[in-house]
């Protein structure tokens, strides 16, 4: 496991995402109202670019004809066959225990902490007074 700086904290707006490549792996980094999540850009079903899917809410129901939408923007709908994944955990909604997208821990850290290392920042010039999005891969 190594820690990779992948974005300036201000770079990904709330509801936005950024695709990064870390050691050959494409990973989608999502900002959900200040909470960051990262998923491998590969759907565990048949390998679509999952992180290019639409962010939607979670549809639930208390019975036929009842429609509720919660967790706005926290579910990722795969662009190929529409399976839904929880961006917080990578778990699929239809089969959460067996079908999971690979998820990575994300933190926002101060440049001052980061300069103490160890971290990888191929493309980043770390400034002590700035915040950065960091993924552990």
């Amino acid at each position, binding site marked *: 496991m190594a820690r990779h700086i992948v974005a300036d904290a201000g770079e990904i707006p709330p509801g936005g995402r950024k695709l990064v490549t870390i050691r050959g792996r494409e990973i989608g980094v999502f900002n959900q109202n200040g909470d960051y999540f990262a998923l491998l850009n590969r759907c565990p079903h048949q390998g679509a670019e999952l992180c290019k899917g639409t962010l939607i809410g979670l549809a639930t*129901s208390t019975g036929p004809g*009842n429609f509720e939408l919660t967790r706005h923007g926290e579910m990722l709908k795969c662009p190929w066959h*529409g*399976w839904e994944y929880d961006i917080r955990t990578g778990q699929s909604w239809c089969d959460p225990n067996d079908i999971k997208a690979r998820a990575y821990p994300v933190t926002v850290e101060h440049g001052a902490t980061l300069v103490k290392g160890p971290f990888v920042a191929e493309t980043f010039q770390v400034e002590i007074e700035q915040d950065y999005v960091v993924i552990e891969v």
Partner: protein
Amino acid sequence: MKSVRHGGIDCDVHPALPGMAALLPYLDPYWQEQVTVRGIDGLDLSSFPTQMDAHGRADWREAGHKPGSSLELLRRDALDGFGSQLAICNPLYGVLAIYNEHFAAAVARAMNDWITAEWLDREPRLRASITVAAQNAEHAVDEIERRAGDQRFVQVLLLSQDDVPLGNRRYWPIYAAAARHGLTIGVHAGSTYRHAITSNGWPSYYLEDYAAHAQGFQSNLLSLVHEGVFAKFPSLKVVFIESGFTWLPTFMWRANKTWRGVRAEVPWVDRPPSDIIRDHVRFTLQPTDAPPTGADMERVLNQIGSDDMLLFSTDYPHWQFDGDNVWPAGFSDTLKQRVLVDNPRNAYPRLKEALS
């Protein structure tokens, strides 16, 4: 009779109404006169022309009589013939196809009086489905309430190809009444012929009509699950009668696959359709669309993924097999026992008392 296993529950036998004349004693004077004056002489469903070989096995026919119209023969050939401890009567008559819903309700009521007096009262091994006029759920519910006190009625009978798929809310009062009284919903193959009998329009030949029945059942299966009938009535069991069952694995796979992608449309379907089907829907044994070998059948049964879903049936007097070969190859003895007794008992709450 080596292949016969005794003590089973035959979940599909067909006592035949000889004709409207047999119902006259059970109709009130107004409808008696309507039937007589208007010359309404027969309401047999076009799905089952009785002169066809398939709709009356040669050795179960009596010259000059409709197959299934004799209690003596049903006793000899179905009950004694297969050693069944109980058999469920599904009288097929055109009640559901009558446009006049008041007449339909009157005929339904007469049918239930007829089956009570002429079959149930004369043979303790018989149970029956309630005939209802589902054209109007109020009529149907009235009739269910009228019969519910008689524990020998174990099921409410509907047709597989009515005006709309069976998950439609139009039927929900019927399901509510059934659930309230521990009655099962039986869906028998057959069409009211008010719309094309395939989803692509009218076919030309009887063969197409008969073989395409599975299509109607499949649409109903999707409809019942996705309209949320089982979410609304969690205790309800539905029995598909003469639907075949070997098509289930691939159909359930397709339903599950589609659900995964578009399940937000029906959020009350909160687990794979196949799980809901396995919990709530049962299938009668005959006719079986059996694959070529017993090994193939074992594979299909394995893919169906549950030993609870099949119910023993002979489909008497219809001709689905010869002699006493009611069991297709590939059924183990353990599975046969489940199909004969355990599964019917669990599918029909009202049988529990008779069997305890």
